[in-house]
């Protein structure tokens, strides 16, 4: 099956083309607890998030900062198993917004990659993000194939500094179909651990140029996540991004102020 019917994320992305950027809000399955993380999802949706990024916690999240690392650890301690994360995913997906599942490769690797992809698809996920699994590995290929079969986008993750040569490889990867892997990618997730250090910083300029390059190479919507903390950050990224990602800001809000602050925070940021 090659996306004979577009999933709900595909529909959203095509309908919103050329309009105001979408807002993707991040949460961790099981943080602060499994029950409470369901409330977090509800708050994100009520606040107006367009897409939910649901992270299935891994003990050692290489590409995340300390806030998400600590929260992942607490979620696992509080009992966030893969099975519980999947039943949470089902509830989150039922809220009506597209859900992108994010996790680290060892979790699906141990679970069995085809089985993992089928399980998240059955639970309602529209996309999968695995930052530590390059496409040109055996596992990367298995992700591609399984995602295609289940109608889930396998989203590439890139950062400023990735050379054009590699971006072009990524854009044409995906195996087999004449359109390359493009139709099975949904969007491109552009991230960095460097934050935006002011609207006119050299880095912001580099980022903008990079996003433009991504658009040319991938011809896909570009999601951009750079540790946004404020409405100003969101507005800044909205100049170039098709999807603005807000990640650790919600984890920090839950930790510092409680779940009650999540919904108003979404409104403030958007």
């Amino acid at each position: 099956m090659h996306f004979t019917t577009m999933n709900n994320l595909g529909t959203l992305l095509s309908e919103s083309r050329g309009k105001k950027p979408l807002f993707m809000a991040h949460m961790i399955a099981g943080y602060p607890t499994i029950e409470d993380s369901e409330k977090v999802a509800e708050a994100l949706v009520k606040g107006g998030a367009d897409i939910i990024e649901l992270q299935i916690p891994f003990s050692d999240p290489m590409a995340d900062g300390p806030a998400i690392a600590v929260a992942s650890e607490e979620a696992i301690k509080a009992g966030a198993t893969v099975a519980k994360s999947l039943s949470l995913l089902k509830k989150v997906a039922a809220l009506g917004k597209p859900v992108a599942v994010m996790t680290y490769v060892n979790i699906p690797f141990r679970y069995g990659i085809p089985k993992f992809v089928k399980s998240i698809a059955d639970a309602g996920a529209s996309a999968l993000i695995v930052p530590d699994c390059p496409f040109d590995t055996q596992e990367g290929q298995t992700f591609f194939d399984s995602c295609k079969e289940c109608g889930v986008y396998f989203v590439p993750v890139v950062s400023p500094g990735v050379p054009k040569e590699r971006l072009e490889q990524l854009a044409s990867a995906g195996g087999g179909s004449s359109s390359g892997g493009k139709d099975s990618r949904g969007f491109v997730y552009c991230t960095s651990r460097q934050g935006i250090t002011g609207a006119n910083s050299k880095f912001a300029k580099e980022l903008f140029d990079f996003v433009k390059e991504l658009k040319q190479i991938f011809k896909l919507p570009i999601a951009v996540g750079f540790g946004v903390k404020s409405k100003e950050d969101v507005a800044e990224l909205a100049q170039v991004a098709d999807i603005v990602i807000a990640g650790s800001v919600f984890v920090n809000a839950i930790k510092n102020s409680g779940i009650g602050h999540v919904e108003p925070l979404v409104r403030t940021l958007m």
Partner: protein
Amino acid sequence: MNKEIKYGGAYVPEMLWDTLRKLTEEFERAKKDEAFQSEFQDLLRNFSGRPTPLIFAARATADLGGLTGQGAKVYLKNEGANHTGAHKITHCLGQGLLAKRLGKSMLIAETGAGQHGVATATAAAKLGLECVVFMGSHDIKRQRPNVFLMERLGAKVVPVEYGSKTLKDAVNEALKFWMEHLDEAHYCIGSVLGPAPYPEMNRYFQSVIGREIRAELSERENKLPDAIVACVGGGSNAMGSFYDFIPEKSVRLIGVEAGGVGKKMGEHASRKIAGELGIFQGYKSLFLQTDEGQIAPTHSISAGLDYPGVGPELAELYTSGRVELTYATDAEAVSAVDYFAKLEGVISALESAHALAEVRKIAPKMPKNSIVVATLSGRGDKDLFNFARAFKDESFREFLKDEYNRYE
């Protein structure tokens, strides 16, 4: 592309792709470059103090039955004689030279016991590079003297306050810092693990250990050893000791892991006991992990072996049957330190003592005139406080109190 890799690989975010590619290319160039080789050899000889001695452990051999009756002759490859006290300095110097060739101005490193951190800080100072070392806050408490040394060598030591606050978390934090500082920093990974090319690169630098064992033993005994024994955390001294002998089928290669205090998860750091295939910190190998793929807590009295993963080349040699893995407990390691100190005048690091513990078990069972070489990967100075505590030394306790009072 898309080829099946049983062990190893480079499972990293795309932002590291170009950096790893450049590192691989520079490593390949350096291997063929005479200027690089002569600079590296000069540092090993005239800075680190290589070749390191191969000690004939005559009294231990006699005690284990190897001169009169049944039993092997015991030799110790004393890597503890290296500058900074362990084999780690070798791959730090090698990587430091590569970092300079790549135009980097800073070495970053993770450290558990502090040995690799001290070695990296030393190489950085010698080669004129900045140095930042990441260390779990739990390890900082256990290994304060090494933190002090790193700081004196000009390094900045950054505590890691999350996770188990030990070696694996230090690796995570070093990787994160690296991703933010790719232009100026080279990540000097401290063992034969991490994404390609690190496992091969560190093994390449460390393989001098095995070549020296071969040459020294050939001169003394005019033959190959029958067994080589080395402790295994990530596996750098083991791969270094074994590599030259892999084609020599008559030579048993034995890696000794941390048996800790028991066989339950969290009580040891032995992949032989419970390692399962996984992908972690950039490489595919055997890891201690839960059924769900969460990385498991580990325990060892030696901080250098207290890590859930094993180098991919070593995992492959183990599963193919070429390398045997076994383990020694905390108590056996402490006892082996004492045994070789009294009989041979050698105070071993607790890590290396795991290999010595295995020698005590196998030497008496080996045929007369056979030879076992144990790699003494590091000397025991760094474990002074741990030893004193393990032996419940009352006078040392009094000394610490006095020292505290003298501190004003």
